[in-house]
């Protein structure tokens, strides 16, 4: 590989890494044509993991990190003194194809700094996607970052070539946007999200291709004083209004040549982890934001215990729950029981009566679950009312795997 290209790749990969989204899932199953390259399996594949525990699935790069915007939290803002580089359309195409042939990646995740104008930048990104699909018969995954300030017809076109589109909200409140991202405007971001949502729905009904893996977004956490509950309220709205496939949370982390208006200390990474857990509760466990808010302290999630356990500890009166009788909705509220374990319990108990040993085979979280459930041969009795229950269930300090 050409040395100059290698150098650019380092700069433009480094510049793209603060986008937490990495997933290559959700695309319809596709196979390569006889002359083409690439497939999608539906689930997505992580081809490597870096020592921060994050997965490498797509070639995640910027077309350029030159940028006319000046968002304070961003390493690529125009006032930053980082090294700059710019790929040509063909360079990105070559890298994608050659990396793909060697099975390093699932596809491309292309974003860009804003150069010349939002429209011009978006057009260049579209050229890459079109070239891959048309000239190389590329059927792997393409995720395009949408620039909300670009003309609406470019967003219309982006969905034709991409498997997934995303716009990062980055800051959950209009005030934060105004202060930290002067060129961005909440209304145009939501307008573009709404346009994509509409088009994705219509295309699904009409069985046409328009961003079949939906849209996602990202919020930065810890860059201002927004609380966890405010972040989650924002997420609930994004899931509800625009059918987001994922909201990613990215704990603000120190960047080279940081802006003076940012906090000096990054938030604990555990905060990000707890937000993901709470997000899961909203989407798969039937919780609503206000329930999570009620078990938080001043709008912040408990860092010592996961949000489901935090809720259970504050609502001990609804437990213990009988695994052989309780409704699925109640089983989902038991700490330590995941949605999959609950589904297995519900199916299995049609044929048999579950004892504690049986439950142990269905979940790895039995220790946390025990005080909250009843099985054929087991009752927690007084355990639930003990004062030190919370203390006993606190996870030992360790590095948790991150969801992103």
């Amino acid at each position, binding site marked *: 590989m050409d040395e100059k290209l*290698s150098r650019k*790749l*380092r700069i433009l990969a480094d510049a793209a*890494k603060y986008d937490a989204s990495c997933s290559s899932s959700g695309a319809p199953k596709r*196979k*390569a*044509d006889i002359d*083409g*390259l690439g*497939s999608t399996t539906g689930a997505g*594949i*992580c*081809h*490597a*993991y870096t*020592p*921060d*525990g*994050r*997965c*490498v699935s797509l070639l995640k790069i910027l077309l350029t990190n030159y940028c006319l915007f000046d968002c304070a939290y961003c390493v690529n803002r*125009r*006032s*930053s*003194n980082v090294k700059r580089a710019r790929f040509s359309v063909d360079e990105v195409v070559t*890298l994608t194809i*050659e990396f793909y042939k*060697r*099975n*390093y990646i699932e596809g491309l995740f292309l974003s860009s700094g804003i150069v*010349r*104008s*939002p429209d011009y930048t978006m057009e260049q990104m579209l050229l890459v996607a079109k070239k891959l699909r048309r000239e190389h018969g590329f059927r792997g995954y393409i995720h395009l970052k949408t620039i909300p300030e670009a*003309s*609406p*017809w470019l967003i*219309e076109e982006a969905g034709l070539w991409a498997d997934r589109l995303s716009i990062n909200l980055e800051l959950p409140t209009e005030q934060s946007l105004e202060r930290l991202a002067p060129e961005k405007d909440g209304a145009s971001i939501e307008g573009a999200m709404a346009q994509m949502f509409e*088009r994705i729905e*219509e*295309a699904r009904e009409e069985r046409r291709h*328009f961003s079949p893996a939906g849209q996602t977004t990202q919020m930065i956490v810890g860059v201002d004083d927004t609380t966890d509950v405010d972040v989650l309220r924002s997420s609930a709205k994004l899931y509800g209004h625009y059918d987001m496939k994922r909201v990613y949370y990215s704990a603000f*982390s*120190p*960047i080279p*040549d*940081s*802006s003076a208006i940012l906090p*000096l200390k990054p938030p604990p*990474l555990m905060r990000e982890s707890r937000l993901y857990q709470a997000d899961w509760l909203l989407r798969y466990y039937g919780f609503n934001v206000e329930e999570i808010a009620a078990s938080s302290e001043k709008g912040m999630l408990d860092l010592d215990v996961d949000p489901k356990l935090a809720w259970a500890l504050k609502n001990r009166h609804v437990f213990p729950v009988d695994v052989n009788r309780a409704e699925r909705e109640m089983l989902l509220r038991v700490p330590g029981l995941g949605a999959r374990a609950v589904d297995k319990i519900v199916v*299995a108990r*049609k044929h*048999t009566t*579950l004892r504690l040993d049986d*439950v142990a*085979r*269905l979940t790895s979280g039995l220790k946390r679950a025990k005080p909250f459930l009843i099985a054929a041969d087991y009752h927690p009795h007084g355990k639930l009312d003990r004062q030190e229950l919370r203390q006993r269930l606190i996870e030992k300090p*360790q*590095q948790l*795997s*991150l969801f992103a």
Partner: protein
Amino acid sequence: MSLHCITLKDGADLDGFRRAVRWLMAEELAPQHIVWSLDGTPGLFGDDGMSSAPPISLPRSVARLIELGVCHRDPERYALLYQLVWRVLNGERDLLEIASDPLVHRIDTMARAVRRDLHKMYAFVRFRRMRGEDLERFAAWYEPEHFILETSAPFFIDRFRSLDWTILTPIGSMRWDRHELTFGPPTRREDAPSEDSFEEGWRGYYESVFNPARVNPTAMRAEMPKKYWRNLPETASIPGLIQTASQRVDAMIEQEATMPAKRMPERAIEAMWDQEPKTLEELNAIIAKAGPLVPGATQAVFGEGPKRADIVFVGEQPGDQEDIQGRPFVGPAGKLLDRAMKEVGIDRSKAYLTNAVKHFKFEQRGHRRIHSKPTAGEVKHYRPWLMKELELVRPRLVVALGGTALLALTGKSTPISRSRGRAQFGPYLGYITVHPSYLLRLPDEATKREAYEAFVDDLRHIHDLAQADPETGELPLAAE
């Protein structure tokens, strides 16, 4: 009762196991009377009788579990799977639904391990280009944990169909030559290429995406255990990345915010917001470049008329004639519109005529291209352009000809019969009527004449409205 010994081939002998199960079930031999031997020399114990046993029918989920289970390295796999089959066929048909059953749990765990092994193989095979080959050929050395080589093949074929590739493993090899898949004997690491010209670039990429402020090797190892590292070129960077991480973070935090080295690019920032097309020509160039949404059209058919027309007529989409000539409303429906306009005194050359959708969509039937109606999603795809078009023409009145135009102008689909007449399309005074092609499709002459008269009536209103005072909206005396 004496013990029966069944001998199967080394590796994942799915066919052998299936044959054995059929025979054992036919003979009604319970699992506790079977010894499974894996010494790799089948046929020693009367294999001949086995092939004649009748097939058995298993639930699909059980069959799938067997396919995965036989790939596992556990020497007990066949015994366990046969126990499963025996119980399923002896009164426990729904056994798999009891995930808490010890046997089901154990086999599930095995299947999960095989699935994970497959998934890791899809992820961690690293192809290297073979040297000295004229045509591109790729090869990879990989060490799977279980007997999954054959099961993995469809994934690699689907993905790399147009490439010539070989995967070499200690349990066998396979080559896809772009047409056919062939399996070969076990191989050694030395049989695979030892380098590739893109590997350094890949390592550079891997190093760059690592965020030193979030070191978490435990999470990394959970998903990418060390046993895989020796076949992953990028993992050579791991120790260095971890060692220097805290130092890099300290440096970032200690560094004071710097002054931007460049001046504020004020003019560029100002110019950035000036991206919108300023003329119809610029807009049309953008539409032309984007190409048709549904393939087939000869060209984009743009709006036509004076830049500052009083009335804009919006139709559905170009038809066969329009597509060939590249002009709107020149086919049979256009002729009819001309006639009606002339009757009420609208000068076509002073009006602006355009379509909601700019490309012809059709079904080919023999030599004829039959118009097919654009879907709602297609109409909306073109909508932003139409809105821009109106913004550039700035007419006094916008006329929706038919349902598609109405959908394009309002974003909602409403029946014409219910909304015919005056309307408001955003900032524009509007009027809703039928599309002239609707008149052409009516079956008998009487209805046709009647509908035509109604259409002409609408045009008369339109003509008057366009001359109304733009401030007060008052019509000239003669109207209404």
